[in-house]
């Protein structure tokens, strides 16, 4: 065992135990660490946002780069997103809070317009292509069987979410089959979720045992 003598490692360990102390019960130490985390995260994000986005994309070309590098036309065009961005600040001025709608409209409209064809292609068309039974599946008996099972599973699971008609007769049978597939899917997700959560804990213990206590190399 070789305990670390670095003060920074000890700070990290103290903060780790501060968060872990919540497991025993809620306490002032945990609350302190929680609020510290929120404040530090936001401060860190603000500075990175400035250095990586706002300064190189807006302020530098608009105010600090000469006309030989950025033309007057391009500089004037940058005023549009600057004004739209500043409209976000109007959220805190009650009389002018309606101005927030402009940047939101711009972002929502752009996002919706760009997303629709992309989602159509990725999540609908390609996924439908993957569902359909193609001649290739007849190469082997098990490939055929599982492809057929998947096809039935997709159809039945989609029909489970069809609430425009009462689930009676054939629709009820399909819907109940869909539930079976959905439950297996959620079970698989749950199994993986257990793995995820345990991994995060193991990672923290690896830090404590390796970097702090030096018990593992």
């Amino acid at each position, binding site marked *: 065992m070789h305990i670390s003598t670095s003060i920074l490692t000890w700070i990290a360990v103290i903060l780790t135990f501060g968060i872990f102390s919540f*497991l*025993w019960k809620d306490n002032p130490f945990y609350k302190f660490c929680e609020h510290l985390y929120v404040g530090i*995260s936001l401060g*860190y*994000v603000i500075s*990175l*946002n400035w250095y*990586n*986005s706002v300064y*190189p*994309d807006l302020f530098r070309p608009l105010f600090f780069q000469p006309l030989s590098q950025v033309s007057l036309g391009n500089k004037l065009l940058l005023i549009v997103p600057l004004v739209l961005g500043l409209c976000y600040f109007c959220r805190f001025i009650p009389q002018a809070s309606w101005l927030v709608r402009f940047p939101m409209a711009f972002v929502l409209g*752009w*996002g919706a317009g*760009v*997303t629709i064809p*992309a*989602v159509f*292609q*990725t*999540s609908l068309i*390609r*996924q439908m*292509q*993957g569902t359909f039974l193609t001649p290739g599946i007849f190469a082997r008996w098990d490939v055929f069987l599982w492809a057929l099972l*998947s096809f039935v599973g997709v159809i039945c699971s989609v029909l489970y979410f069809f609430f425009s008609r009462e689930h009676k007769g054939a629709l009820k049978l399909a819907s109940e089959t869909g539930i079976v597939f959905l439950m297996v*899917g959620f079970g*698989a*997700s749950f199994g*993986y*979720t*257990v*793995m*995820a959560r*345990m*991994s*995060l*804990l*193991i*990672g*923290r*213990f*690896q830090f404590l*045992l390796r970097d702090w206590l030096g*018990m*593992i*190399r």
Partner: protein
Amino acid sequence: MKFLSHLLKIDRRIIYIVMGLLVIFPLVKPLGLGVTSGPRATRLFDAVDSIPPGKTLLIAVDFDPSSMPELYPMLAAVMRHAFAKDLKVLLCGLWVTGAGLADKAVTEIPPEYGKKYGDDVVYLGWKAGIDAVILGMGENIRNVFPTDYYGHPLESLAMMRDVQRLRDIPMGVAISAGTPGYTDWLNFAQSRYGLKLGAGVTAVSAADAYPYLQTGQLTGLLAGMKGGAEYEVLVQKNGYSKAYMPAVAAMDSQSLAHVVILLLVIVGNVAYFATRKRGT
């Protein structure tokens, strides 16, 4: 039956202590269970392996410290594989709090292979906009990232001379913890610019990625810490790295933790149904 009803009322802190001890024990005294690579990790490995030397591999670092134990080993293993195959590595990210992790990887891993920043690896950094970043990179990377993360103009970096847009990159690996993540790269980079994509995801979202694997939209998938361990094993088995494998080292703990959860569910259910039947 009284024993079973007492068992149901056990203090949760005792469960926490038992859980903690059973996770710590295999880290200190490994059980030696070993890790074998699955088909999904092997598919991704083969895809990266088949990229000709000198070409660029794009790695999207779309995670933050909360998913670091699962995803950082994947990032390290993929980078080691790429450097061993003499590929250039281009990193970028859609998560602002992941910038430090990519910086850490760029600082620690290239020197192991004698690789130089600017010639063999470039970290573009993080930019606000998510979809706009990906779409912008598809047209011209310099429009989105005029400089890299450290402030160097892209023109001054030798590696970037041959890489102008996403179509110049044969393959990307999106290592993501959620949204934004691999689905955004699929929606925008692949559908519009045809980028071949592999993914490394947290275990929470691994089950959701299977439809994309089946259609071939994803070329390979690394799922959680196990996926990272599988890739580490593949990289080491093929002689590309001799580095410490943190994900492999954690697999014994992972196995024991899963068995404990299983037993807790079974015992809890048995105790519940037994006491419920008897009305105690």
